[in-house]
């Protein structure tokens, strides 16, 4: 910027740096604390913030390895954290895949075909995704109670049911993918159709390979959404072995059974990979979308 700089400018820059560093220190405080707590022996604060000795007991428990306490007792893991994490990954990956399949085909129809009520349908999808599912929890519970009566593996307290419940939240994905399809010139598919391809072949062999980046991003976002989802999972899942990590991990912090140190290790173990996936998805989101823009 070709701007005249006065004397106070330098001080302002320094002040901004200082302010930002202090603010970031404040923001990072919980992360730093949780790391220290996970390495501190015992489940209660010892009086000082930085532990005087490092202990891996919480990490061992979280990874399912029993260890011997100072008084010679064998301490067994209280909660199956790895199983919960696996449940979360399983549910989120499957619901993400199913959601991707459903939303891609829908997006293709919305982007490339003409049919009755098209404008109304896509607008109502936009409206639908504004309503929070939390409001329908009672109904969702009742519905899966019913479904379970006919198909036990899709009922309450099953992962099948949870995956099924998540497939409804695809409205936003349809919009995202449709937006990307709109940036890909329709002429390429038309050329394929001239060569004798059916609409499905044009979709499957021409459009889909070009849309891989956005499909990856949408899958990752759906995956993260699935891992982070709490309300529906907390209503549908009850048995300890069935829980996802989002529902299970709070059990470490019940007032009567307070496992602060174990919680810290479990939080890092499950939070770190999810955060990394999220950051990657964010990155690809921007690069994937701009790549689409360049093609158009």
């Amino acid at each position, binding site marked *: 910027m070709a701007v005249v700089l006065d004397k106070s400018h330098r001080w302002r820059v320094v002040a901004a740096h200082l302010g930002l560093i202090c603010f970031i220190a404040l*923001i990072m405080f919980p992360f730093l604390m949780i790391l220290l707590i996970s390495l501190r022996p015992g489940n209660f604060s010892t009086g000082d913030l930085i532990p005087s000795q490092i202990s891996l007991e919480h990490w061992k428990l979280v990874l399912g390895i029993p260890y011997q306490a100072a008084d010679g007792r064998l301490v067994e893991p209280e909660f199956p954290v790895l199983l919960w994490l696996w449940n979360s990954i399983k549910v989120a990956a499957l619901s993400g895949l199913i959601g991707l399949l459903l939303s891609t085909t*829908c997006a293709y129809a919305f982007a490339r075909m003409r*049919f009755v009520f098209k404008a109304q349908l896509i607008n109502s999808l936009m409206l639908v995704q504004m309503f929070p599912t*939390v*409001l329908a929890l*009672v109904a969702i519970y009742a519905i899966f109670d*019913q479904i379970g009566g006919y198909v036990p593996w899709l009922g309450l307290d099953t992962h099948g049911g949870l995956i099924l419940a998540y497939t409804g939240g695809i409205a936003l994905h349809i919009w995202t993918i449709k937006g990307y399809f709109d940036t890909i010139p329709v002429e390429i598919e038309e050329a394929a159709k001239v060569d004798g391809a059916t609409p499905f072949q044009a979709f499957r062999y021409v459009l889909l390979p070009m849309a891989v980046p956005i499909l990856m991003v949408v899958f990752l976002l759906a995956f993260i959404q699935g891992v982070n989802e709490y309300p529906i999972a907390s209503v549908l899942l009850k048995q300890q072995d069935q829980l996802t990590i989002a529902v299970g991990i*709070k059990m470490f912090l019940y007032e009567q059974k307070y496992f602060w140190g174990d919680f810290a290790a479990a*939080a890092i173990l499950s939070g770190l990979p999810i955060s990394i996936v999220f950051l990657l998805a964010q990155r690809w989101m921007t690069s994937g979308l701009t790549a689409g823009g360049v093609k158009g």
Partner: protein
Amino acid sequence: MARKLEHWILLLAAGLTLLAGLFLTFKMYAAGQPLLATVCLATLGLATYIYSTGRAYAFRYLFPGLLAVVVFVLFPLAYTFTIGFTNYSSKNLLSPERAKQYFLDETYVVDGESYAFTLHSDGAAYRIRLENENGDVFVTDALALKQATPLSVPAHRLEAAEAPLSVPADTKTLIQNLKVLKLVSVTLPSGLVASASGLREFAPVRKLYQPLANGELKNQQDGSIIKPNFKTGFYETAAGEPLQPGFKVGIGWANFKRIFTDSSFSEPFLRIFGWTVVFAGLTVLFAFSVGIVLAVLMSWEALRFRKLYSIFLFLPYAVPAFISILVFKGLFSENAGEINLILQSLFGIKPNWFTDPFLAKVMILIVNTWLGFPYMMLLSMGLIKAIPADLYEASAIAGAGPFTNFFKITLPLIVKPITPLLIAAFAFNFNNFVLIALLTNGRPDFLDTAVPAGTTDLLVSYTYRIAFQDSGQDFGLAAAISTVVFLMVAFLSIINLRLTKVNQTETR
């Protein structure tokens, strides 16, 4: 060739799906749900039509996705509305037919006659032997006694020609099998039905109720009559006393009346509504204020390391909310938390973050600002980028400082495009169930309300409590409150759409 194969596989999958669907429909019909079965059948018919004619080709791509949205998003919402008009709760859980069946299945032990009971093993299975006072002996066929399900078996008179039974099982075996045995009813040749009335005794039982033509039930034991009351959803005695279990009936606007006119409900409802609005408003205000200041700093070209800073500032957004909220819950913990540890050593204070209503609200706002500012920062950064740089150059020539720039250029130009996003954020926080459920669970509770209600409860978490946690499990009331909240959110969304449209037409 490969295409042919794919085609056949798809056809096979479609056929199997259709068969599975038909089987499901049949099961629903058999379970006494004709309406559900009809809807299911209609869906199957629609699917078959779409995938077999060329006319609805586009819907071949749309059908599965739209079906998922309809079944798992739209239908639950509509269903919630209808539940709001019923008395569905843990007391009135069953359908009227099931409740009637429950009463019809009830039995009572007929006085006077009883049978001495012994259990005899027959290979891995068991036979039940009953003997009455006259010395008549009856035995059943061999029973597995593995599953605790109601079982009705015939018994025949033991003939002398039959092979003798083994020695009677000992008490330990009896006790082991008692749970299963309690559910066995033995039909004797005389037509009497007997079931276990003790460890070594079977007694004849009769159905307690007999259905009358007008839907009422007659008590066989004392001759009294109970009537179903379709207003309250209970079978009632002549004195009007309700009998458990109740059944689900429509009760019109009663739940809504309760929310707005019954003071024991309306008072906490209004207080919680007030806090919900304050919470959502302040959250948006704080997160936006912090976010926009940071966005301005991150857009300031004279500042170095901006990229690095923004990665750190973005982190709270990347960590899953369910983890960061719980981390804060632990850090704020009154006795074991690190925040109080620091405050104690620095200032000698130990605030009661979870038991003092005001401090709990402060804590919630701190946590939610921490969670929400990166998103606001991201939005504002994008919008600031769109502001032409020559505006700032002009103001610099006029000698304006950074504050003038911010309040006279940046903010006025951002307000309009960001308002719909702020309203969306308001609506999101209005229903921020996860934050409350994981951080305070609505506690501390009001001390002066008849129904349990928390000072930090939002309307959604209050609904959740009514539906799933506190005694009563009043699904009907919860659904009614959900409906009210839904209307509020819909209202916000409509305003939002209007604003977005106005913005779009203006930029065109």
